[in-house]
């Protein structure tokens, strides 16, 4: 009897020890140091605190602009928390720092710079490395100061994440006017906006080519909604597809040779693949009495997502780009539209517009894991998402307010980059280094 009880006690103790060992961050002795040190463990999570103090020497006018642009860039990168300059203690002039004073305000990294008439020199410091900069770059002051800052911030993102940044990329969208709508393009942060369509008709649904050199869009300039491709800088457009009925919703193949479009030449809206150069039909992908529209070509080229109401309300479907049967992937709510693929390789994530109650919001869906992430909530009506070139951010239109960008992991608040009535947002490819 006593032996049985001993066994029970032994098992109970073993279980308790096991549970204690399994709990992350559990307090236990360290065997390597004769049980003298407590172990503390935690996951890597949250944004990286970084400071961008405004340089107080050199070209002070440029210094303010550099700090503003760099702070904005890093704050929307999806991985940084840019610290409030009001808390800064280190007043060290020039490119040097006092690491302890930056640690005292919670900074892990600090960006210092100095602008002269000829160059802008940047330094990235990590507090753990003291006064030795982790990254140094010097750029000749040729052209736009903003562009130089974007290039530097891309270096910072690459240093930390190994991924290319999206600073310097462009966003296209439809700007609504009175009775017309025009295709606009702008820097991702809203600067340098310009008209691409340059006509007084209705122009909708822009789509950047993979190279960034062209924009496809639908225009009613010849009454019928035909598909055009124009130089991204805004030159004369070329008519690519003018089938009877709709020629809309273009999405480029990754190699830029083809376009997935919605055509209604036979009366019903169906998804087709056409040649990007002459509009000839390469393949018909859907054949259903329901409405099939809004194609989006996956970054690996193998799949096309689209919207269909074949099962009732509009839902997101996927179909092999080479043809095959379509499969519904969205299951939340009764109204899901405007799919856009994440460019992250190895992932199959789609962002789309979903109706929740009386408003529309942006969500993402990992098709493999079925994980959904909400990007917007209780912030107006949000539609037509498009991923940044590195997949870290999503641009979208907020009804009556403009174009916004938000973290693609659902954290943080969206930031407005363009004010006005906008739809049909499409984020262009990464800028050339």
């Amino acid at each position: 009897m006593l032996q049985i009880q001993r066994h029970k006690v032994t098992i109970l103790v073993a279980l308790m020890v096991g549970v204690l060992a399994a709990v992350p961050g559990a307090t236990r002795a360290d065997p390597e140091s004769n049980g003298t040190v407590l172990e503390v463990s935690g996951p890597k999570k949250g944004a990286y605190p970084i400071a961008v103090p405004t340089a107080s020497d050199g070209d002070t006018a440029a210094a303010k602009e550099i700090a503003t642009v760099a702070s904005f860039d890093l704050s929307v990168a999806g991985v940084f928390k840019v610290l409030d300059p009001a808390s800064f203690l280190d007043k060290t002039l020039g490119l040097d720092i006092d690491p302890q004073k930056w640690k005292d305000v919670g900074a892990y990294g600090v960006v210092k710079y100095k602008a002269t008439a000829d160059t802008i020199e940047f330094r990235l410091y990590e507090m753990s490395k003291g006064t030795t900069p982790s990254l140094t770059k010097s750029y000749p002051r040729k052209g736009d100061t903003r562009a130089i800052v974007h290039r530097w911030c891309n270096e910072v993102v690459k240093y930390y994440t190994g991924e290319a940044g999206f600073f310097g990329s462009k966003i296209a969208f439809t700007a609504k006017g009175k009775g017309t709508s025009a295709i606009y393009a702008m820097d991702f942060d809203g600067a340098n906006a310009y008209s691409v369509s340059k006509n007084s008709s209705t122009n909708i649904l822009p789509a950047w080519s993979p190279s960034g050199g062209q924009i496809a869009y639908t225009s009613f300039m010849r009454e019928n909604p035909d598909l055009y491709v124009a130089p991204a800088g805004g030159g004369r457009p070329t008519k690519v597809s003018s089938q009877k009925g709709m020629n809309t919703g273009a999405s480029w193949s990754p190699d830029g040779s083809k376009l997935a479009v919605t055509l209604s030449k036979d009366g019903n809206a169906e998804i087709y693949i056409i040649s990007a150069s002459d509009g000839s039909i390469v393949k018909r992908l859907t054949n259903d009495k329901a409405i099939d529209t809004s194609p989006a070509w996956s970054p690996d080229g193998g799949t096309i997502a689209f919207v269909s109401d074949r099962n009732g309300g509009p839902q997101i479907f996927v179909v092999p780009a080479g043809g095959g049967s379509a499969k519904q992937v969205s299951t939340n709510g009764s109204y899901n539209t405007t799919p856009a693929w994440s460019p992250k390789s190895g992932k199959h994530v789609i962002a789309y517009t979903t109706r929740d109650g009386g408003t529309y919001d942006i969500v993402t869906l990992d098709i493999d894991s079925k994980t959904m992430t909400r990007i917007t909530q209780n912030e107006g009506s949000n539609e037509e998402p498009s991923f940044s070139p590195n997949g870290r951010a999503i641009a979208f239109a907020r009804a009556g307010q403009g174009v916004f960008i938000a973290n693609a992991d659902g954290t943080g608040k969206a930031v407005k980059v363009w004010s006005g009535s906008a739809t049909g947002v499409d984020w262009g490819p990464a800028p050339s280094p």
Partner: protein
Amino acid sequence: MSMNEGQMHVVSIVGAVAIFAALSVPTLWLTNAADAHQPELRDVTVIEASIAVRKQKVVQPQKQVRTPDAPVKPTGVNHDDKKDPPVDPKKPDEKSQHDDKPNTDINRFQHGDPDDPAGKPVTTVGDFNGSEKGFGDVTKGDPWLGQLNADLRFTPPEIAKGDSVPVGCIHLTADGKIVDTKFDVKTDDDLQTAAEAALDGLKKLRNDHPVPVPDHLLPLTTKWLCFKFSVTK
């Protein structure tokens, strides 16, 4: 006329058979008749029966809400040049804590009374000895230490560089305050910064809201209590 016992048995058996037959024959006949009128399978009309199940409402995903970071208050700098720096009345006299003079108290070297096997109750835990670190098994599963661990809030950022394991130590006092911190193993990556921030945060928290060290952990106050910081994979 009277029947003998054998005749009575025969009559009762015959009666029982007669009653059984009277009951079972009509029953069997009726059953066969019913089977004879059963339709062929091909003539049967199938009515599908199903149970109505209320469709489970699909809930829309909810947006992540990140807990706002605690405001970072600058430390160690007085912005008012005319104002004297604040004096922390709780800060111990460092000289008395880390006196380099040799300790001449020979009582500390005395052993227990060998004639008294039960020993004597410990009434003092001794002074802080900066050359000693931590302690052993007493840490396992202790709630006070568990809370201390939780209060560390070691959270390196998602993109923090490095995979080092810094080791930081605190000097506790019996009232639960932290009078000093140091790093035994100092690394040169972001995990060091995260560990320093965690120790600084713990020091501030425990000095603002001290939790007295329980009696059984008082030996902690005589040596550095160290933490090994690592990232959960």
